């Protein structure tokens, strides 16, 4: 494999504590190596440019059944944005729900190399893997949803954490999943009857367990299994005024808990798209930001991580396993509504949404997403996302970075809101003069996310021995003044190396790379009871046989990459 030397760039790497120094990065055999180890490299001149590890997205909806519903039921999403086939690129289109090809190319052009699909219904795992298989360039993994799974509800109701863990191990292996995702715990099962759980103490109909018990029990199982990632939570009561209290209640469930793993992960829980969970007030008239209260807790408790879910003020397509929320949303905006309840496991809904700068609440949501990042004391625990495509498409990350790095850019957007004064008074954003640095951005988009995923041995840094995923941006931190340059440069990587291969060259995709699909194989002691329970449920309540449930690695996955964990001790 070719050797490369990326010379003279301004390097930002929080793991190596390199903050804009000019450091040469050497690549050999697909890995980062010491400069002394390469003999005859191709030299890439990065003078005047910014160099970072490849981006790692901890939470996006890019593959699977609800994503494809979004594509198929929104032909209008493809208007004016289709790109023809060119060179190695397939034809590709779509704005808020791009085709798989466009997803790969767009992320690559942003300098991202690893993207995790944030919610995989286990029964549809095969579909999710088929889409990931067709997504070029990116290393990917998918989180199966567990928060409304009947096995989990029954085991945890009976305080059988060991059985829950054995079941989780089985399901991760069967679906080739990566981590434990929890979406509206209990509430989505209640949605099977048209109901919901609005607080973490609302009992789930029939199952007689509360969301708090589900989340706590799944954390215990996660730590017993010593999984690379922690539980990944989207808690109850998303998107409602006053919901910050539910969010804090959720955070507090895990106060003082300690992680247990060999992957360097330090959190016991990751809370996703916190912007949607940080609302004060008690109706849409008086909704206000509670980002300060949320971040006060996060800053003082280092056993958790979170991502933002920044609203980008675009027309987009919302999609979530929070089935009752999507019904609530369609009642609110009267746009088309898709819903699928999935037997024994979960549900999901899809509703288009327009975050209009002319709507006060949208302005408040936009401000809250940014406030969360600006109030964060530890950028290694707070990550940039848009909950793609829920709060906006992922290719707006460079725009979010611009807002976070420039107060002028934020104020310009604030002034462009129709209800700017009302937004100012309901939020804290105008009072925040912090401007994030590239070093902090590197933590929020690479080093921190890789660590939280338990993947810091592969991604997130330019440390020798790691995957040679390197992004070079045409951005000179010493001379750049115009904040628009941030958005332009970080949306059009000058170079992207993926696994030691050049994938983007001067802004153009030149290779489809050699993607990996990550999954976690957690070994547990043999558990006859769980084996019996699985067999019985398949016989009596599922509509596919147990033998037809498992994802066939050879057929459905491209370069499967198994991460082994031994939890038999």
């Amino acid at each position, binding site marked *: 494999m070719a050797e490369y030397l990326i010379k003279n760039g301004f390097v930002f790497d929080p793991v190596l504590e390199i903050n804009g120094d000019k450091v040469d990065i050497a690549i050999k055999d697909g890995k980062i190596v010491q400069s002394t180890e390469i003999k005859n490299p191709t030299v890439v001149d990065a003078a005047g440019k910014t160099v970072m590890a490849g981006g790692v997205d901890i939470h996006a909806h890019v593959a699977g059944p609800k994503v494809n519903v979004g594509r198929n039921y929104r032909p209008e999403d493809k208007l004016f944005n289709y790109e023809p*086939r060119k060179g190695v690129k397939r034809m590709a289109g779509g704005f808020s729900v791009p085709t798989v090809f466009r997803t790969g190319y767009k992320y690559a052009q942003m300098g991202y190399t690893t993207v995790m699909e944030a919610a995989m219904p286990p029964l549809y795992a095969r579909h999710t893997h088929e889409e990931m298989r067709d997504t070029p360039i990116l290393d990917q993994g998918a989180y199966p949803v567990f928060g409304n799974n009947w096995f989990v509800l029954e085991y945890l109701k009976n305080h059988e954490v060991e059985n829950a863990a054995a079941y989780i191990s089985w399901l991760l292996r069967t679906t080739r999943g990566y981590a434990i995702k929890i979406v509206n715990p209990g509430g989505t099962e209640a949605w099977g009857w048209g109901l919901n759980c609005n607080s973490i103490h609302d009992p789930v109909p029939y199952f007689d367990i509360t969301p708090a018990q589900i989340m706590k029990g799944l954390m215990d199982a996660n730590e017993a299994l010593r999984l690379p990632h922690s539980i990944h939570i989207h808690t109850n009561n998303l998107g409602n005024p006053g919901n910050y209290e539910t969010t804090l209640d959720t955070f507090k469930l895990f106060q003082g808990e300690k992680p247990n793993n060999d992957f360097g992960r330090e959190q016991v829980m990751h809370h996703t798209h916190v912007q949607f969970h940080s609302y004060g007030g008690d109706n849409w008239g008086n909704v206000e930001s509670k980002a300060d209260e949320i971040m006060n807790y996060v800053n003082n408790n280092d056993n958790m991580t979170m991502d933002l879910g920044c609203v980008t003020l675009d027309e987009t397509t919302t999609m979530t396993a929070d089935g009752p929320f999507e019904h609530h949303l369609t009642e609110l905006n009267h746009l088309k509504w898709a819903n699928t309840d999935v037997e024994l496991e979960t549900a999901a809904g899809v509703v288009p949404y327009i975050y209009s700068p002319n709507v006060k609440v949208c302005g408040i949501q936009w401000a809250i997403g940014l406030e969360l990042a600006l109030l964060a004391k530890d950028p290694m625990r707070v990550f940039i996302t848009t909950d793609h495509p829920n709060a906006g498409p992922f290719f707006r990350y460079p725009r979010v970075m611009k807002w976070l790095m420039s107060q002028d850019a934020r104020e310009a957007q604030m002034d462009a809101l129709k209800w700017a004064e009302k937004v100012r008074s309901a939020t804290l954003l105008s009072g925040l003069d912090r401007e994030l640095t590239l070093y902090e951005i590197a933590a929020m988009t690479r080093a921190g996310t890789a660590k939280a995923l338990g993947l810091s041995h592969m991604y997130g840094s330019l440390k020798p021995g790691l995957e040679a995923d390197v992004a070079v941006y045409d951005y000179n931190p010493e001379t750049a003044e115009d904040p628009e340059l941030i958005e332009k440069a970080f949306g059009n990587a000058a170079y992207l190396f993926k696994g030691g291969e050049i994938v983007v060259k001067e802004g153009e995709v030149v290779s489809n790379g050699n993607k990996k699909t990550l999954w976690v194989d957690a070994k547990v002691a043999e558990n006859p009871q769980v084996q019996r329970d699985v067999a019985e449920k398949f016989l009596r309540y599922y509509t596919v046989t147990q033998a037809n449930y498992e994802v066939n690695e050879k057929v459905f996955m491209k370069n499967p990459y198994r991460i082994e964990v031994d939890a038999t001790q």
Partner: protein
Amino acid sequence: MAKIISDVVCPFCGTLCDDLEVKVSDDGKEILEVYNACVIGTEKFLHSQAKDRLTVPMKQDEEGNWNEVSVDDAVEYTAQMLCNAKKPLMYGWSSTNCEAQSKGHEIAELVGGVVDNTATVCHGTTLIAVQDVGVPSCTLGEVKNRADRIVFWGCNPAHAHPRHMSRYSIFPRGFFTGKGHKARKMVVVDPRSTDTAKMADLHMQIEQGRDYELLSALRVAIRGNPLPETVAGIPRETIQDVAETLKSGRFVVIFFGMGVTQSLSKNHNIDIAIALTRDLNDYTKAAIMPMRGHYNVTGSGQVLGWQFGYPFCVDLSRGFARYNPGDSTSNDLLRRGEVDAVFVLGSDPGAHFPISSVKKIAQLPSVCVEPHYTPTTAVCKLHMPVAFVGVEEGGCAYRMDNVPIETRKVVEPPEGMLSDEEFLERVLERVKEIKGVA
């Protein structure tokens, strides 16, 4: 010693039953028995064993005589036909696996073809309605475990999806439905007294083509608003009774078929059926599901969706994907004379398209990839026989509720027989050579 292969997936209809058992001879070459399948599914397996099965490609000469050709010749003819055409129609895809569909899409992209599937003449109207109003739905296991109100509208599962009622919708006892059919109310809406209708608690024998009116009336009745004495031939009291039955259910499911998708009003029927389902969600839980026919027509829509963003009639001839039902749909293109070659795989337009379209196919350079003799193979210039997917070849298929299942291979195809995917792979290689693409 015969052996039994279990958990076999049936490659016939959208019900995609996956509990079949197939008894094969010891050498793995012959299917002896098929257990658990319905009569149609059984026939699909046994038919692959027909002694007179065509195994060599056949080509029509100018006088209309059929001559055997080699597989290489078949690949060459197909690749040249597709490359020489300005706008080839690549139709079918509903009776093959997703892997073959994917390969076909890549060819279509290179040659600038139109990819359309059988939804174009069955549930395409449903897909259009979903684009208008969305679709609240569920998996078939939710029906089995929760549903206590089942509506069959313009469909006849007793004949078209023979195991649907026993596996999923009427008879099974699920988690919250321990009494099975005894605790379910079954409503059938159909102008005919079908075998399904005869089983119903309530059969609304609607006047033909007046589904939109009856669906509207049900929406009115659910809101408790006044109705005329009869709507679509159904007395007011019956409509009110049905509305009350649905509202009082814990979980309502409406299944609908081509009786509504291809009758007057077409996609508007489905728009309002979905709207009715949405309305019911204000009172209880309700879902709606199309009764998809081919076992993998749903998969074709899915693969097209993630690769191009649209579920059927995707026109790639301009270098980017374009979707416009009524314009980029197969019959419109054929009847307007807008396509100059036809490639058919995994369906039988000769039997199901209007005769005016079939005549056009007969006049054009055309290839039919198909294990059987069909009306389509009779009008195409080249008949390329292939292995049966789901019998002689595995691969992914999507059930009517979009659940993907991996089909299983139970016997070897006749010697030298290619699968759809293998044939398409060879065509793709040749197309790349002709087009000079790396």
